[in-house]
């Protein structure tokens, strides 16, 4: 049995005004994520990926369909999940120091101070932020702030980390560093990763499997197994012919989806 089972997830927002049409965002999304897997959802912008993640995280009730985690139905935010959002400046609390941001979920759960401190130091060390604990998040660079958000999820000992375009607002070099950090963290923690991005290279580089979603109303259009060596490297992995083939396959699927589904404003050719 898969760790996370997403079945026929449908989300429709009712029309807000009379005469307006209801917004159909998710259209029967179905997939499984196995324990310890790095699973990535990739799709064009405006594909309802954030809505999908909010439904899976128990933050938003789907109109139809279900999410089961470890055999239990998700009907609120489950203890086993931890999010890493794109906008670290909003998801980290600016009134708390780095260490207190990472500690907050633990102290709220009533965990003893000594253990909290221990977990916080360990998590900060594993994301390369040793010694930054007394700083405030806004005193750090964007990449470092996202490391704090990752550390918070690690200290929480989540079984599944849910990452919603976490590296979309950092520069290319920082992005590559953070991708490698994520692989290292995954190797050390053994956690399951559900990752969302619109960057095809990033999806292939990080993942064990990639799901391609269509523009909204979204559904899973294609599942791609990434048979690349487990040990990934920004230079050598990306130079492999298999990497290029996977990349091209996913690209073609997305491009086909985008061109084949003209929007109200006419067909859109650029992703």
């Amino acid at each position, binding site marked *: 049995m898969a760790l996370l089972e997403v079945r026929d997830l449908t989300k429709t927002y009712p029309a807000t005004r009379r005469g307006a049409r209801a917004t159909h965002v998710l259209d029967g999304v179905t997939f499984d994520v196995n324990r310890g897997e790095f699973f990535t959802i990739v799709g064009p912008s405006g594909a309802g990926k954030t809505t999908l993640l909010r439904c899976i995280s128990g*933050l938003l009730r789907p109109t139809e369909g279900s999410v089961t985690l470890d055999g239990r139905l998700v009907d609120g*935010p489950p203890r086993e999940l931890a*999010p890493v*959002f794109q906008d670290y400046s909003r998801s980290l*609390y600016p009134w708390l120091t780095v260490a207190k941001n990472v500690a907050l979920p633990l102290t709220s759960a009533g965990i003893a101070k000594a253990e909290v401190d221990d977990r916080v130091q360990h998590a900060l060390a594993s994301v390369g932020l040793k010694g930054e604990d007394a700083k*405030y998040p806004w005193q750090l660079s964007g990449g470092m702030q996202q490391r704090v958000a990752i550390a918070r999820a690690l200290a*929480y000992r989540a079984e599944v980390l849910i990452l919603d375009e976490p590296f979309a607002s950092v520069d290319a070099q920082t992005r590559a560093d953070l991708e490698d950090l994520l692989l290292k963290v995954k190797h050390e923690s053994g956690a399951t990763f559900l990752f969302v991005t619109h960057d095809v290279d990033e999806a292939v580089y990080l993942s064990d499997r990639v799901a391609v979603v269509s523009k909204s109303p979204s559904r899973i259009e294609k599942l791609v197994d990434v048979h690349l060596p487990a040990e990934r490297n920004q230079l050598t992995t990306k130079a492999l012919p298999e990497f290029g083939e996977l990349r091209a396959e996913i690209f073609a699927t997305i491009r086909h989806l985008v061109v084949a589904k003209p929007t109200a404003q006419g067909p859109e050719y650029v992703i």
Partner: protein
Amino acid sequence: MNRWKPWVLSALGAVLALVAWWIASDQAGSIYFPPLQDVLEGVWTYWVVGDGGRHLASSMVNLFAGLAIGVVGGFVLGLLIGQSRLVRTALTPSLEFVRAIPATALIPFAMVVFGLGSEMKIFIIALGTLFPILLNVIDGARELSQEARDTASSFGIRGWQKQWRVVIPSVLPRAAAGIRIALPLSLVLVVTSEMTGSNTGIGYVLITAQNSFNQTSVWGAIVLLGVLGVILNSLFGLVEHRLLAWDKGLHRQGDH
């Protein structure tokens, strides 16, 4: 400008203004503008070492009592209203109505209900200072971002923990902005309420001096009120600086 220049410039400006006042009032020879020297001497003999202390204390006690009720009430109500769309929708028209009434217009009503003592003044000050805090805190609670709320929900931070660790810190900068408006307002309201129906307080001394054509005492009370206003603002500035250092830092960061 160098680091020390603005400070020196401000001090210089203040000293020059005082000197100008001193000389002009000394030369004026008008009973409406008594010499500053006499005014300051009057402040010293009456307010600092004389009988004024009792009135000053009465004003301050009422001011702080009213302000405390206004701030705490506005804060708690603001949290409740700001976080519930239902409550907000139901209460907004009534709030807009009550807010539109000048607190001073309620003094005659308050005199009937509470009499001429402290309760009346505290009621007026509390009511007047409640709204700037309330409206700011409502906005602050509404502005808490989706990501901030999702983060709290996902990490199991709820109930009192969420209020104490997430919602309240996030509205503090807005509450402070409300208090900055409420402070001078509380001074206006304490003086007005003492002028209309009272036999104690700075406002009472002021109106009595005016009735006996004692312009030096009138100016003495005005100077005292100005000094009190400056002290209140500075004290609050210190508290704000300590409590909201993160907010200042955050916004300085945003300027880059």
